[in-house]
């Protein structure tokens, strides 16, 4: 089985978000970049499938400029066999999906996170599926391959559903599909020499263009209420905040 895992290179979940250049550019100063947490689940499941099924290969793909390479190397250290970097800024979902679709042909299983945690659109898997004419399922909490059939548990509002589809397939993953893997020393050493192919992007007309960023309005100061004055809280929720 050939597995492709698409990873995003995103700010750590604890990052404070700021913008520069008159709110037109993300301020990367002091920000730690990581493999998207959902993509990390997809990668972990891919490695588990590789370990359980001899002959399985795992390729990671990232759409991003050269500074994403440490993130890609980390995925190789976790256990992927090789990597592809599409050398361009990931501007919007359709653009990224088009780049992935260009390289995803021939893979049996195309995994990624349910969404990237920077733009949160949560549609790249659906778009890749559509571009390649393959079924796509997300967010997947459990995924088992049985011959050419894939059985999945998909989260829906307030519950879950059991879904079945045939390979090849695209899936957007989330916990608890697998436990995150931490690279060991051997993995880190071997990652340095694993193949990382850099390819140029295909031309895609921009359908969405960013004009500016905005930060939420600052929150007013918290009003503290004594633990024995809960009636006071109830009155404030009713008359001041008007939420009950």
């Amino acid at each position: 089985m050939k597995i492709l895992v698409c990873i995003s290179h995103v700010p750590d979940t604890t990052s404070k978000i700021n913008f520069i250049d008159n709110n037109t550019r993300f301020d990367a100063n002091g920000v730690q970049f990581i493999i998207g947490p959902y993509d990390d689940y997809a990668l972990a499941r891919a490695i588990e499938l590789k370990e359980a099924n001899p002959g399985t290969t795992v390729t990671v793909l990232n759409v991003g400029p050269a500074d994403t390479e440490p993130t890609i190397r980390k995925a190789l250290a976790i256990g992927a066999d090789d990597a592809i970097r599409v050398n361009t800024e990931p501007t919007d979902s359709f653009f990224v999906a088009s780049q992935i679709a260009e390289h995803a042909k021939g893979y049996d299983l195309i995994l990624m996170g349910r969404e990237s945690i920077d733009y949160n659109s949560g549609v790249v898997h659906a778009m890749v599926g559509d571009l390649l004419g393959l079924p796509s399922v997300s967010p997947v909490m459990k995924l088992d391959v049985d011959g050419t059939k894939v059985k999945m548990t998909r989260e829906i509002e307030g519950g879950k559903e059991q879904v079945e589809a045939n390979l090849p397939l695209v899936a957007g993953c989330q916990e608890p599909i697998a436990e995150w893997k931490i690279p060991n020393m051997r993995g880190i050493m071997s990652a340095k020499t694993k193949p990382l192919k850099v390819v140029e992007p295909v031309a895609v007309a921009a359908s969405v263009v960013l004009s500016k960023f905005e930060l939420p309005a600052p929150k007013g100061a918290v009003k503290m209420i004594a633990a024995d004055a809960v009636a006071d809280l109830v009155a404030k929720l009713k008359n001041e905040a008007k939420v009950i």
Partner: protein
Amino acid sequence: MSVLVFIETSEGKAKKSSLEALCYAKALGGSVTAIVLGPADANSLQDLGKYGASKVLHAADAKLEQGIIQAYATVITKAMVDENTDVLVLANSSLATPVAAKVAIKTGASFASNVTELPDITSGFKVKRSIYTGKAFCWQELKNAKKVIAIKKNAAEVIENSGSAMVTPYVVQLSDADFNTTILSSEKATGDVLLPEAEIVVSGGRGMKGPEHWGMLEELAKTLGAATGCSKPVSDMHWRPHHEHVGQTGVKVAPQLYIAVGISGAIQHLAGVNSSKCIVVINKDPEAPFFKAADYGIVGDAFDVVPKLTAALKAAL
């Protein structure tokens, strides 16, 4: 402008989030057509007129009872062509968002999800989206002639008026290729308030000390007509089911009122609640970071404060 709205149903009735999408579409101006897939309640279809639809297409095919994404995308794409739709509007959900993405590809439309307010059309067509898991927003111009907009909860207010809609049956030929996934079974919490749609949410964290103490939070939630949520450690320890996990990697909620009990307020949890209108934090640690993000705070023992709060609410409501 011709606007099409995909109405998602639950037990045959339009979901509230879809009514928000309909009111959003109405506010855009132009003619508004709603489309409903699968069996639906006749009165509920007719009532869509009250929220701005002048026409309702009903694809009643029994095969559409289950939300099969590919089949839904095929039907809605056809409707966009038949209705000469400029803008498709729908409410973000586990079904509607992937459907929207596929329709955008099939129709060559510009796509935006998590849209939080009406577009700015003074120059071009610009939408405001929530990004970085609620920590920021961005304005994006949708360049293509056709547009698909998936809105976030509370992007529009549900306003009822006296309009009426013409309900028309809508038939689309579907092929086997449209059913490329099979839903074998589904389990859904019924009767309870669903967390992503709830107007009030009561969440518990590690400070609750164990799953056996959730009764008092459920009692508080019941009193308020609220859904229950939890922090990531609580779902990781299996005290509560995963679909109740609120936060960066869990459910993002946008209720009127969010009550956090025994949750310290890690930045990853805040990312899931920062769209809430009003936040109440109850924690025995006065240094808990959550207080900085709260509107009202009580420093106190949950086991003491929560039952008192429930009693006070019962007396007041």
